[in-house]
């Protein structure tokens, strides 16, 4: 996994207050699913998922609608409680995890400007009460420039297009400076140019040794840019190198496995030994 990470300092514009992953951290498990079942009303949406995500992984999560992809990310964020099994995130404090939900709950009618929205990404530094200093303002400016929104500082968020809004949310992710970044369909309904720009940021995070999990539907994009993929259809179908996961056999199985919600489903009783892997 750590093959494409050189322990160089080419990305050392990182800030001193950050606990950057050290050489021995690379490849260490940053997120572990232990026979995880997540769901709603006792019905599983993610069923018996087992596996580790090593630090620095760039992982695509694919699968049909209703396969539990978003639920999995919500589970990592603690917004959905496991029905069984668990999620280990113990090595990362809460502030080291950034999450961009599928439909961000941003109230676009709220009277604040792009600058203030993006600045909330500094929450970890400022917390509830801390001020925003000169260095912070410089970082906000850099983040806006990185996503192509230089000059948009004073625009009310209600005037942004869908693509511009997503760029602003990526600028906020940049400022969050997290070690684990969860993206739920980050490129949906965006034009090619915006996708390319935002994808470049994802690649940059990967180069910096951050762990990125992204729910995606565009298999071509996944094949080109994501080394590893988890194919989910409630139950995990395959998890490994992308070229081995995204094959016709697996994709057909995923389509079949994702059945409808069964009101009369029996209680799931694990067969002893079956989940040993």
């Amino acid at each position, binding site marked *: 996994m750590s093959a494409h990470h050189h322990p160089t300092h080419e990305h050392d514009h990182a800030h001193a207050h950050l606990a950057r992953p050290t050489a021995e951290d690379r490849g260490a498990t940053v997120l572990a699913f232990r026979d995880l079942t997540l769901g709603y009303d006792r019905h599983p949406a993610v069923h018996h998922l087992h596996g580790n995500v090593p630090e620095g992984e760039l992982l695509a999560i694919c699968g049909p609608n209703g396969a539990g992809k978003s639920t999995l990310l919500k589970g990592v964020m603690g917004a959905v409680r496991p029905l069984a099994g668990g999620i280990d995130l113990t090595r990362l404090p809460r502030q080291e995890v950034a999450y961009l939900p599928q439909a961000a709950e941003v*109230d676009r009618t709220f*009277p604040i400007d792009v600058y203030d929205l993006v600045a909330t990404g500094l929450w970890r530094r*400022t917390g509830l009460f801390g001020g925003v200093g000169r260095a912070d303002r410089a970082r906000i400016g850099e983040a806006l420039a990185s996503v192509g929104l230089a000059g948009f500082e004073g625009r009310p968020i209600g005037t942004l297009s869908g693509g511009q809004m997503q760029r602003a949310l990526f600028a906020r992710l940049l400022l969050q400076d997290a070690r684990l970044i969860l993206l739920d369909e980050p490129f949906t309904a965006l034009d090619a140019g915006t996708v390319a720009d935002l994808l470049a940021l994802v690649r940059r995070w990967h180069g910096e040794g951050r762990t990125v999990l992204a729910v995606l539907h565009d298999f071509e994009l996944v094949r080109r840019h994501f080394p590893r993929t988890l194919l989910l259809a409630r139950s995990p179908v395959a998890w490994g190198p992308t070229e081995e996961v995204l094959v016709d056999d697996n994709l057909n199985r995923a389509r079949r496995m994702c059945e409808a919600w069964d009101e009369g489903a029996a209680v799931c009783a694990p067969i002893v030994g079956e989940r040993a892997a």
Partner: protein
Amino acid sequence: MNLYELFIAPFAEFDFMRRALVGVFALAVGAGPVGVLLMLRRMSLTGDAMAHAILPGAALGFLAAGLNLFAMTIGGLVAGFTVALGAGAVARATQMKEDAALAAFYLVSLALGVLLVSLRGSNVDLLHVLFGTVLALDDATLLLIVGISSVSLLVLAVLWRPLVLECVDPGFLRSVSRAGAPTHLVFLMLVVLNLVGGFHALGTLLAVGLMMLPAATARFWARDLNVMVLLASLIAAAAGVAGLLVSYHLGAPSGPAIILVAGAGYAVSVLIGPVGGLLPRLMPGRHLEA
């Protein structure tokens, strides 16, 4: 009648008018920001529900000690906090949304309040609880109102960031901090506090008017949150002055006069307010180049 007689004399000559003026100014300071936040959180009607919820507490205090400031204030606060916390707890522990839980709680509370008031006391007393007596504010009441406004400003200053972020992007706040839920509860308590402050002057039902009407008016004039808050307080204060003058010159009850003036300001703003008002929408200027 000259300008002095129209605008200054009532306050210069009568002590009760000066007290009323101080009272509405103090109320305006707290009600402006609280009202704007309520509106932006789509909780405009929550203020109204809370105002109803306070009634049984004030009535209990009234039954226990008559028209006693301390008893009615404590009663109102306890009833308001109970409804706010109870509805909040139900919303968090069950599938029920907060607005529905609040409706259930405040309706029970209101019925209880009317029952208590009608058990003892004449209709005149009920009117006092419902509509307040801005022209009879004594020192203790003024101190209470000013105290509540000061506390509100301090708490708002401390909680401003999570309060605003919880409106703009609650999902993000949840992802970076656990401050969301406590902040929301503290904010509901601020609403109760300001309504209790307001009910001595304007009554439980009209107190919410000084909170929501200036906020809704300010929305038509400001695009920026901070400007909107400042404007709401100024509008509330202006409505207070104008309402008191109208009430003095026409001999009308002061509470409704204040709220009606605020309502008139709102109506004008709906028509001509530059930010999304009716007239600018119907007759926009020629479109721009880019």
